């Protein structure tokens, strides 16, 4: 048929459009448009706020985001240092790193001690440092929707034990469409013999069931976990420091089998003079190290080509910089690393071999910058903290 004939105007459908199909169309809209659509009618409001719709929207976003950069941001946590309102700034994660918009943090948060543990599919996990005291503060926050959920911790540790570290990991379980947390507490019980005095307690949290459960029989070597976990291939991975031997390894938690295992880091000569960072590079677990020789900085990116196989470590990039010491701050999906010298922040594109000042104030660690994509998660929840 001639194409023009399809151009003619037809009248609007006189019957109501089937809700099942509406569900499919609206679930392909970006977050802001979906939220605006809650005002169309009561049935649209109920549809959009349903758990089923929110879950479908998350899946749709994951499917379409793979090739679409439009909703990728870097979250930049700015705490109350100059009397300004504490906020996160969402920055464009593709080209410019320019601020797109900012969202104030809810007021009664323990701001100065706040850390971003990680971000998956629209939710950001925040902890307060009082996590290390008896009480524990964990929040799951959807900054775009201004929804925050306080996660209460069931058990607090016994006072007689010396607490070595607490570490929280955060991930999205795409089989069960659930957001999960792991909390690892490591204790030293001085009353026990040398071999038994280190004890660990591991608990898992599910947002769907809103509850914690313990994992039994966890034997953890004498290690120290620092920094945020990196999620690759269904496993959370931390850099583990063995304080007795003064060596590093990777502690990996398989979220499906719920077991820990240790993995070797690549053979590298300067572990005693660098801070190793785990990052995700093109879907693979990777190690970023910056070695300072005094005159230059040598930046290396090692990639574990086959997850879990220590033999597959490969030094993918080896770059020499003539600048001061470099801290890694973050790694974006476009294989761009964000790094800091002592006073400025830069991005370095490994593929284009280009470095660029992004005009950000100095950040010393990865806790203040995370990658973020929009989602509707927590839309069906009440806000648990008052906004400013």
């Amino acid at each position, binding site marked *: 048929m001639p194409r023009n004939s*399809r151009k*003619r105007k037809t009248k609007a*459908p006189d019957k109501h*459009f089937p809700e099942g199909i509406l569900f*499919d169309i609206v679930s392909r809209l970006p977050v802001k*448009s979906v939220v605006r659509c*809650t*005002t169309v009618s009561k*049935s649209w409001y109920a549809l959009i706020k349903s758990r089923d719709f929110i879950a479908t929207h998350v899946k749709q976003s994951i499917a379409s985001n793979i090739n679409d950069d439009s909703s990728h941001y870097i979250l930049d946590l700015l705490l109350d240092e100059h009397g300004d309102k504490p906020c996160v700034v969402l920055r464009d994660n593709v080209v410019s790193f320019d601020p797109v918009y900012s969202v104030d943090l809810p007021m009664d948060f323990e701001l100065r001690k706040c850390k971003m543990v990680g971000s998956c599919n629209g939710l950001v996990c925040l902890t307060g440092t009082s996590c290390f005291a008896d009480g524990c503060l964990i929040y799951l926050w959807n900054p775009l929707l201004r929804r925050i959920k306080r996660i209460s911790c069931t058990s607090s540790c016994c006072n007689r034990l010396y607490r070595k570290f607490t570490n929280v990991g955060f991930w999205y379980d795409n089989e069960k469409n659930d957001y999960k947390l792991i909390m690892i507490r490591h204790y030293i019980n001085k009353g026990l013999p040398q071999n038994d005095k280190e004890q660990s307690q591991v608990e898992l949290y599910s947002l769907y069931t809103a509850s914690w459960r313990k994992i039994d029989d966890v034997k953890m070597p004498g290690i120290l976990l620092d920094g945020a976990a990196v999620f690759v291939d269904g496993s959370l991975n931390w850099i583990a420091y063995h304080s007795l031997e003064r060596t590093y390894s990777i502690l990996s938690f398989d979220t499906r089998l719920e077991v820990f295992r240790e993995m070797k880091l690549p053979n590298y000569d300067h572990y005693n003079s660098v801070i190793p960072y785990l990052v995700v590079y093109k879907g693979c677990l990777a190690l970023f190290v910056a070695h300072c020789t005094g005159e230059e900085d040598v930046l290396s990116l090692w990639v574990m080509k086959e997850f879990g196989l220590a033999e597959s470590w490969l030094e993918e990039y080896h770059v020499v910089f003539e600048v001061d010491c470099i801290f890694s701050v973050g790694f974006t999906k476009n294989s761009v690393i964000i790094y800091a010298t002592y006073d400025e922040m830069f991005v370095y594109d490994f593929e284009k071999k280009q470095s660029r000042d992004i005009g950000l104030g100095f950040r010393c660690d990865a806790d203040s910058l995370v990658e973020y994509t929009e989602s509707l998660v927590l839309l069906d929840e009440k806000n648990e903290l008052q906004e400013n």
Partner: protein
Amino acid sequence: MSSSTELTEKKVFLLKSLDGVIFEVEESVAVQLEVIRELIEGDCARPFISLYNVTSEILALVIEYCKHHAETCSGGTSATIADEDLKTFDNEFMNVDENILLELCSAADYLDIKSLFELTCRTLASLIKDRTIIEVRKMFNVENDFSVVEEKAVRKEFAWAFK
């Protein structure tokens, strides 16, 4: 004998639209409609199939779409060229009045043509994206059943989205 082998090679189906128009389609095109493929696989497909929910205007478009996709996929061209060709065709195919789009979407759902359903859903979503709420209501023929106070409350709940 030769005519019977020709018949099995070129099996055709007659599809009847809601308004009684009959379309003749080859099996390679008909199987793109999941509802018909299931009938064929279950050995329940009769040569004459009535489609009660689709008008002839929409069915003609659906067949045009399936025909192009069937031909492109079975042709000798490489996968990347075929992909490009389908993309161009799909873009052009979606360049229709939005009420036709709505009907196409609903037909793709009824006839269970996954790629066309995805395509129409995505196109409709991109149309809605920047529209005002009044325009969205008009498009889907939805009546605003909120009272003034209720609507204000919902807008307040999501004030940031209306900035």
